[in-house]
């Protein structure tokens, strides 16, 4: 997976992973396409059946693997194809935002939007806004930080090892 960690910061553009529910937001993105509404190409959509399927770990994993932001799209409150999956998503979203702040990740990197199947124009607007927002925040590059942290730990581990061998009594 070495290619995952290569980032050319000179030409950095935001990379946003989007998790869209099948019934509303994914369909809205299809509608935006059919209506030829142009928006920023920085978004990569992954389809799930319901925003309730979005495990907070998906968001953390995306950020860890190099995403600069994550967008979750679900049906409007009261419109969920599965009655209330979007409410479950909303709860997790709020907790996750607090957790991200505690981890030192700007909470603005995560966004939840209710976009109905008829709101192609909203997909366009939200994606453009989000790209602008992430542009302001700059790269997250968590995977690079992980590398640095790994190096620091390796140095520490090495030092401990050296000390242990040095103090080891001779048999």
């Amino acid at each position, binding site marked *: 997976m070495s290619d995952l960690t290569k980032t050319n910061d000179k030409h950095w553009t935001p990379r946003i*992973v989007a998790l869209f529910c099948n019934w509303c937001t994914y*369909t809205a993105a299809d509608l935006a396409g059919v209506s030829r509404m*142009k928006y920023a190409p920085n978004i990569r959509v992954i389809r*799930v*059946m319901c925003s309730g399927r979005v495990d907070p770990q998906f968001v953390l994993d995306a950020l860890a693997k190099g995403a600069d932001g994550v967008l979750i799209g679900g049906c409007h409150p009261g*419109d969920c194809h599965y009655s209330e*999956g979007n409410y479950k998503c909303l709860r997790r979203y709020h907790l996750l935002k607090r957790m991200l702040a505690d981890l030192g990740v700007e909470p603005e990197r995560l966004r939840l939007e209710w976009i109905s*199947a*008829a709101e192609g124009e909203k997909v366009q607007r939200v994606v453009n806004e989000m790209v602008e927002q992430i542009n302001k925040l700059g790269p997250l590059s968590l995977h690079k930080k992980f590398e640095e942290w790994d190096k620091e730990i390796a140095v520490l581990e090495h030092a401990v090892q050296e000390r242990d061998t040095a103090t080891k009594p001779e048999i």
Partner: protein
Amino acid sequence: MKPIVPKRHEPIRIGFYICHCGTNIAATVDVGAVAKYVALLPNVVVSRDYKYMCSDPGQELIQQDIRDNRLNRIVVAACSPLLHEHTFRKAAEAAGLNPFFVQMVNIREHNSWVHTDRTEATRKAMALARAAIQRVPHHKPLEVKKVPINPNVLIVGGGIAGIHAALTLANAGKMVYLVEREPTIGGHMAKFDKTFPTLDCAMCVLSPKMAAVGAHPNITLWTYSEVIKVEGYVGNFQVTVRRKARYINEDLCTGCQECVAACVYKEPKFPDEFNLGLGKRKPIFMPFPQAVPPIVMIDPEVCLNFKRGKNPDGTYTVSDKCKKNCVAACGDRKAIDFKQTDEIKTITVGSIIMATGFKIFDAHRTPYLGYGIYPNVYNALEVERLINASGPTGGELVLRNGQHPKKVAIVHCVGSRDENTNRWCSRVCCLYSLKLALLIKDHTDAEVYNFYIDMRTPGKMMEEFYNRVAEEGVHLIRGKVADVYPDPTDGASGRLIVQAEDTLTNKILKIPVDMVVLSVGLEPQADAEELRRMFNLSCSAEGWFLERHIKLAPVSTFTDGIFLAGCCQGPKDIPDTVAQAGAAAAEAMALIDKGHIEQEPNTAFVLDDCSGCKSCIPLCPYTAISFDETKKKAVINEALCKGCGTCVAACPSGSIVQNMFEDDEIFSEIEGVLAETPI
């Protein structure tokens, strides 16, 4: 063909296909570059681009490769999976591969159609393709679930759309429930006088169909009733209907109307809804002579035998203060029942047709046209009633002051094609305005001036109709009316001045007229939003119910088993409404006659390492999860699971798996879209 059963530890062999879609994709995405990039990814055996993947040769290409190269995973980068996933699954299945080994990559709707930069779009296509290539090794062979379907159909709305759909289904031997909010079926069409372009009388063609609905053994007709709750899914909807009290026993009333004649009100006194308040009715009344069902009803708001005003729970209290001549007139039939209350019925149906229609634009919203201010300004539906032989004036076109108009202005596009009101064209107004012009000339010999923005008369025989009206001497003026005001030289007569710019001659016109007819546009019903929620539908930005695909699935909705007919989907004329109603009936029949519904096998199941924490149980909206007390583990009832995946996301130990959306599948997609691309 014998299905290919994947052997354990058989190496993953992926075939990747990228579609040009003519130039729809290829103009923006360098499909050749994507195919070359994917060819080098792990597990990929073949990687090709082709002009039209969904075409027969495109599908054959995949099938040939499955046979020749022993492919066991297929990735197709083309349009939205909502459009062609089914196509490619079928193609793979025909070549012996489990259809769930196919994954689609949406590079048209989500890429080439929304981006302009070729490099960026190609990079995105590579990232999305890689996600799928990393995803498919985790795919499992799955089986489509088959669930039986209830053959009964519910039709909501008894206008011409609902009537035609009901008769089509009933004639094919299906049991239909037709629920109509008003006391009679017929809808707007029953109010029209004549219909364009043939000028045949609306009721002459409609009333036989209405009567057929009333008499059909396969149709259960519930008028003055409303759907209040919808539960369940395609094949098995539980629908709750409120049958509002009409204070008449439907089975006992014969429609003789002796009660109406006997009512203590000797003269009709109350505004008659069917005639839009232009006529009067009694507290006991039949909406109109050809009403179906042909029975009377009592308006408790004005009937003397009820106390004034509604109770907080919506009921009315019987005062028993009237002489009740109606009861005496009814005699042994005993059809009148002042103690009747709303009745709640629950039915089970397998499919639903929405035919809830439209409402007309409220011309009060364009006050410069004088509706509601000057008595001689009418909306077009009111004029339909005024020229109708069964209308309040017996078909004589007279103004509120009893005079015949000598000059009439018809204003097109009222409320339509306007940033301030509705942006859309209502499609029928130009034609019904021309029709009214002709009918008004016919009835009164008046001079008629039609003010239009653009004359829109598409459709079979419509342009010919327009030419005919023009030849009859109707004045057709291209100009939007800016103002309607009383004639300052003649205040008493009620004469109005219509001011407009004739954009063909660049002249400001001020034409004195006796009557102004506003050709109001069509709007979604006031409670369309409420209905949309109840039936779990989508609405367009304007508020019309949204079809699944504007061209290829125009009567289907995003909710399986619910179909659309008539103007609830958007403005349309009667021929198109009837055609759509027939299509909706055919779609419902296709569903019923198949006998079962195929469900996506995206249900969830619990692994053995469940710790029994029960977090998932209250999350399930379908109560599909129960707790096995002996094993101390959660269990998911596959028949109840609808595959939302909410429990999967919540399981703290990762012990719930959703088929088709397994954690590994989504994690590998995330990794894939974030991988570096060569460009």
